[in-house]
């Protein structure tokens, strides 16, 4: 009955689609919402036949995938929308050279955003680099589109983007699966300098070729099954782009209203013929699309060309908000206001509940590093602590308030450098995680060392890319398939640049770590403190059986609140006039015992 039908998340469906398409190479750098694509490619393929890797950053991931494609092998590259910012330089030129084996990019946008620093719209990247963009609206399409995208990529010799959002990536759907295909393996790079050596004399020709491809793809899309115009004998029409199709259908069902709906799943290039058809059956058209009003703008242009008399409504007309992720309520509200209907959702009150503020985990080594750093910094007249991306940016929340700024991957050192370059007198400290350091912090450090900048860099090394689910990075020692690989030694790397002050410290040993940080802050020149301790979520799974008998308890608490206010481990709480330790949350790192000024936190073993 359910032959081949499975329940899968969108990410799992995509991973399966990639194996059905016979990919030979899969690359990625972790990022919500698409981190599980590569993970599941490894799970489903058992890493047999597919070369899967977590690359050092997204630019690298894309270049490795493109190289494989040049050699005739199908390659899949996944990253979050912000990763494509990093890889855009490469993508725009790979679009010029074109591909051989299919090259498909899975890009996860975050319209709300729930786990990103900005909500950029990947369709603009597709437009900028002139590559086609497909947007599946459910799990089945997510899987099927991967196969279609590889065909498309090889037919027109272009990279293809599949744009998804968390709503597809993390939701579960029933998906009908197909057979996995044996990866094509007969790699050969056929030299073709006119194509691969991109220099001004030939890029003009490549540019022209790409423009022609774009026109052909638009015609191909117009005739394809990707887009569907569902006529409902109505005058009012809705252009529903990608996943928003679901909100449109749900809203129309709830309201009991009729509308013609264009399900538009080829969002770059948008086929003009398809838009013409929509215009010819409509009086007014509402455009529903996640993030920027791109289809709305295109529709307006085509409408004007065709002398369309009706209205084009959407984000530009403020019928739909331009900020945040869409939902059925928002779409229903827009439909109601346009059609003069009462909005059934306008009366509904959203309960006011306290927001849960995320905090660093119990036993997190980052908390100890921050504790030490701020103990030293507080004694200075002033300081600026510039953070970076990773779990440690959670330390920006009260009560720690450990960092003053946090931008994009690897920016801490550059921004800190900028403050110093501008002449800011206070001490500047950059705080950066290990994965982020390898991703793009290293280039910033090279720049700072070269120019002899006086600042301190704190590398918070917890062995993993923890924020996104503990993927390995170049310092971890194993790869995406769990195989042992070379470890890039941060100490040797930093010293080789000529950094004069380098200290390695264990954030669980507060005194020694404080000494290392104090020395770094007082040092004139560029100083690096390398805080090394495995992520607590990983280490707590490996608690030594002997340690099971160990317990930290509070005895003789004077309620000075130092631990609660400046350390704030979630395992500590106040009850009945004393600080207590939640034995359920505590991972027995023992750092709070070093934090307590009155030695009231004690280590006990079973005898107790």
């Amino acid at each position, binding site marked *: 009955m359910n032959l081949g039908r499975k329940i899968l998340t969108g990410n799992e469906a995509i991973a399966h689609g990639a194996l059905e398409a016979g990919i030979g190479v899969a690359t990625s750098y972790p990022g919500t919402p698409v981190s599980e694509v590569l993970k599941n490619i490894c799970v489903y393929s058992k890493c047999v036949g597919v070369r899967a890797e977590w690359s050092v950053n997204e630019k690298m991931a894309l270049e490795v995938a493109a190289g494989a494609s040049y050699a005739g092998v199908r390659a899949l590259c996944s990253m979050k929308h912000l990763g494509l910012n990093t890889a855009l330089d490469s993508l725009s030129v790979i679009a010029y050279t074109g591909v051989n084996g299919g090259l498909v990019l899975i890009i996860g946008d975050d319209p709300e955003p729930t786990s990103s620093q900005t909500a950029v719209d990947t369709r603009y990247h597709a437009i900028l680099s002139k590559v086609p963009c497909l947007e599946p609206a459910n799990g089945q399409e997510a899987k099927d589109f991967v196969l279609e995208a590889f065909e498309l990529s090889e037919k027109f010799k272009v990279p293809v983007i599949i744009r998804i959002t968390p709503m597809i990536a993390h939701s579960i759907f*029933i998906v009908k699966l197909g057979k996995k295909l044996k990866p094509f393996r007969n790699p050969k790079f056929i030299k073709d300098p006119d194509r691969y050596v991109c220099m001004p004399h030939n890029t003009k020709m490549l540019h022209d070729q790409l423009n022609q491809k774009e026109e052909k793809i638009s015609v191909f899309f117009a005739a394809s099954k990707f887009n569907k115009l569902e006529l409902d004998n109505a005058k009012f029409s809705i252009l529903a782009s990608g996943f928003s199709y679901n909100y449109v259908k749900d809203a129309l069902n709830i309201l009991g209203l009729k509308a013609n709906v264009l399900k538009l799943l080829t969002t770059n290039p948008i086929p003009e013929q398809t838009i013409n058809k929509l215009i010819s059956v409509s009086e007014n058209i509402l455009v529903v699309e996640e993030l920027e009003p791109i289809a709305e703008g295109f529709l307006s242009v085509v409408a004007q060309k065709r002398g369309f008399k009706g209205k084009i409504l959407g984000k530009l007309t403020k019928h739909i908000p331009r900020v945040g992720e869409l939902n059925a309520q928002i779409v229903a509200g827009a439909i109601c206001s346009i059609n003069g209907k009462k909005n*059934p959702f306008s009366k509904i009150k959203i309960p006011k509940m306290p927001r849960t503020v995320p905090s660093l985990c119990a036993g997190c080594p980052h908390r100890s590093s921050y504790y030490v750093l701020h103990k030293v910094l507080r004694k200075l007249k002033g300081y600026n602590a510039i953070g970076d991306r990773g779990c440690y940016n959670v330390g920006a929340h009260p009560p720690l308030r450990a960092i003053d700024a946090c931008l994009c991957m690897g920016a801490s050192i550059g921004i800190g450098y900028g403050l110093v370059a501008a002449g800011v007198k206070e001490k500047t400290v950059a705080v950066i995680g290990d994965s982020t350091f390898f991703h793009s912090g290293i280039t910033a450090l090279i720049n700072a060392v070269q120019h002899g900048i006086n600042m301190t860099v704190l590398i918070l090394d917890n062995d993993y890319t923890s924020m996104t689910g503990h993927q390995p990075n170049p310092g971890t020692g194993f790869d995406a398939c769990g195989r042992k690989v070379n470890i890039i030694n941060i100490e040797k790397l930093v010293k080789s640049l000529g950094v004069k002050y380098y200290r390695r410290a264990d954030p669980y040993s507060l005194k020694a770590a404080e000494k290392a940080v104090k020395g770094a802050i007082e040092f004139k020149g560029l100083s690096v403190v390398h805080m090394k301790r495995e992520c607590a979520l990983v280490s707590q799974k490996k608690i030594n059986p002997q340690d099971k008998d160990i317990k930290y308890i509070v005895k003789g608490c004077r309620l000075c609140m130092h631990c609660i206010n400046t350390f704030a481990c979630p395992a500590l709480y106040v009850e009945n006039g004393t600080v207590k330790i939640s034995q359920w949350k505590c991972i027995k790192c023992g750092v709070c015992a070093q934090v307590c000024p009155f030695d009231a936190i004690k280590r006990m073993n079973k005898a107790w």
Partner: protein
Amino acid sequence: MDYNIIISGLGGDGVIFLSKVITSAALNQGVEVKCYQNHGHAKRGGSVVAHIRIGKNSFSPMIPFATADLLFSFEINEGARYLHFLKDEAMVVVHHDRGADSAQIAHLKSSINNLSIIDLTDIIKSIDDPNTRNSAMLGFIITLDCFPLKSSICKDALLMVLPKEKRGINDAAFELGRRAKRQKI
């Protein structure tokens, strides 16, 4: 009409686990299903919620406001957080340890017509494993008249996703939940 379910709780409660069980039960029963999961900060004990939509007329995995038929929650506040998703006649089941904060319960009582408050800790007290709470919750939920999936299919789906050594105690917890008297407050 489709049947819409919201499951909520905190990281570690088993919300995502149960949503997977119910979704695969629906698949096994041969009905259409989709499920939205939000577990942003689950590892850090934050809010976790799952939406399940059973039937072939719904599109988005996310349930629109005022259309959920059933909400069950492992925590009072995490239940109260999603009241705007409920239909007027929706069924609500909330776990609460005895010695309850009466203000919160009073608030729920005043806003919900069909409310059941159950004490899972009490229900599974004969089993020495708090992790079986969600199996007991599922056992309780399937006894509701409105619940659209067959109890045997749900139980099979539950046992299927568990490792062999955990099946015995979870089976027991499921049965305890199924037999628990509905305690209307």
